[in-house]
């Protein structure tokens, strides 16, 4: 079966990003496919590579990167939600005159159409947070 995954909550305020990771890993290990993982609302901060949690805490954004590399997952961050919350790709930052950019490798920034498309083209939408 093919799943679309939607994550809505800020990883510092909710375990949703981590629960979604466990679900996605279990789905892939069971032989299912993931159409797309879409980060929306507060969850977009997962994709920032300028977060520095204390050394004994895992970086959940990095865990998603590892899973994405292993299974060639598409990790998409909503552009409007990301701009509100300070997550910028190099291209978007350059286009709008911002000096810094912080989007992790393995993530792409795109529009909400990607969420709708994923939910229509997959068998199930599973939302977290």
């Amino acid at each position, binding site marked *: *079966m093919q799943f679309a995954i939607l994550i809505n909550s800020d990883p510092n305020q909710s375990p949703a990003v981590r629960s979604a990771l*466990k679900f996605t890993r*279990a789905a892939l290990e069971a032989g299912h496919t993931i159409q797309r993982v879409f980060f929306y609302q507060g969850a977009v901060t997962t994709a920032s590579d300028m977060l520095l949690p204390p050394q004994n805490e895992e970086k959940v954004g990095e865990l998603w990167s590892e899973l994405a590399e292993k299974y060639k997952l598409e990790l998409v961050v909503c552009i409007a939600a990301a701009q509100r919350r300070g997550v910028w790709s190099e291209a978007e930052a350059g286009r709008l005159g911002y000096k810094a950019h912080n989007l992790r490798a393995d993530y792409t920034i795109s529009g909400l159409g990607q969420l709708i498309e994923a939910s229509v083209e997959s068998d199930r*939408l599973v939302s977290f947070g």
Partner: protein
Amino acid sequence: MAILHTINQSPDTGNQLLACVSRALPDSAIILYEDGVYAALDKIAARPNIELQKLDCKLYAVRDDCEARGLQQAALSKMVKLIDYPEFVELVTQYDVVQAWS
């Protein structure tokens, strides 16, 4: 068409669970995960305004989330089956649509 409901909030933090139980139909199932697992405590599940036993739904709670919060299996409602993520995935495939209460 059967619904798989997911609940990730303690019933004393918000009304997610009440919203779900007032609308859950007999052929549906409910997965409690994250803080939602507190509702699996026997004492909470049996509260007059919750009464999970009256729902006629299948009830599941994610084992890791229970254990992480120190909930002992003996304190949990007998109606609730503990599951791991592979079973969570399997349940999503068995139901027609997921209602992720937020």
